[in-house]
């Protein structure tokens, strides 16, 4: 049971990286888990769980005719020259900054930072090419840095939604 709980939570975190919405992430994990557990008596393996979650996410985007929003920040980022902020960021501030990333950037960062996959491995998993993944990782990190600096600036008030 512990192993199953751990796997569900890991699947949830991946789903959260894709959706950036807690309820949607819970639904994705539940659907994927029920789909996989219905077929096999044994615990599903993690790669298969992640693939099923990813497919469920893509299906929902297609069903809802959603087009991922590409913010104007994508049009040529500049290197940040602001001083490094000190201290940690709150969950709210992280959520604000993560919301600024494209789904593909968040996913690439998640698979790299949380799961330890290389750009080549992420490319295999997501159907991208390696250079595209490297670009996603680089741009994702720059964006995060920029928005985390922004959220620390005086007068900024981060919030969900």
């Amino acid at each position, binding site marked *: 049971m512990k192993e199953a709980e751990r796997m*569900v939570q890991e699947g949830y975190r991946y789903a959260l*990286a894709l959706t950036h919405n807690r309820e949607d*992430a819970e639904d994705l994990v539940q659907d994927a888990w029920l789909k996989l557990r219905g077929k096999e008596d044994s615990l599903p393996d993690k790669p298969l769980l992640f693939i099923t979650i990813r497919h469920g996410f893509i299906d929902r985007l297609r*069903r*809802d005719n959603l087009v991922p929003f590409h913010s104007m920040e994508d049009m040529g980022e500049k290197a940040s020259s602001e001083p*490094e902020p000190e201290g940690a960021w709150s969950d709210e501030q*992280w959520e604000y900054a993560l919301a600024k990333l494209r789904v593909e950037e968040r996913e690439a960062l998640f698979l790299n930072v949380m799961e330890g996959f290389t750009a080549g491995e992420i490319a295999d998993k997501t159907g991208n090419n390696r250079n595209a993944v490297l670009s996603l990782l680089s741009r994702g990190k720059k964006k995060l*840095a920029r928005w985390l600096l922004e959220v620390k600036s005086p007068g900024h008030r981060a919030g969900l939604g």
Partner: protein
Amino acid sequence: MSMGTLEIGFKRYYEAQSMPPDRVSGLLGRRNPRKSTILLRRFSLAAMLTLVATCGLWIGGKFLATERLAGKVALEIALNHEKNKEVQYRTGNYRELEKMLDKLGFPLRPEGLPGLEQYQLAGGRYCSVDGEPAAQIKLRDPQSGTLVTLYVARSLERFARIRSRKMDLGAIQVRIWNQGGRFFGLAGEGIP
């Protein structure tokens, strides 16, 4: 900002995120007999086999395929009702709900089931039935106050072949029918 600091913060943020314990328990506890996925599947299979046996008029690939689809759809509807998802749009007005779920492009008010017109609309959300875009609508029984779940989809050819019926799947009843170019599925306890 060093990339190490960013990655540490990123990791810390996601490691702190977790699915609510009651939802995890519900998910992992679905192997238990009470309202479990397996129990619902068994009832659906039994209901489907009973229908096939008692009807038993002609053995044709299309007939069996339609009966399999009916069982599968009824089970999907029952399982989704059990999930008890929050409505995406709260309203008591069907026209308003149709505007909110405008990607579906068909009327949502149910037809063809006497007694259902008394139920009060509580809201709805997008969903799917057998992969087809649908509306999941919550209706409140004015007598008991309990919520039932109505699914509305286009009456595609494969749905249109499904005969109207009511099934018992564990504690949940499911009724499926076609009317006015739409396919309806109603799930809950004590449904008309």
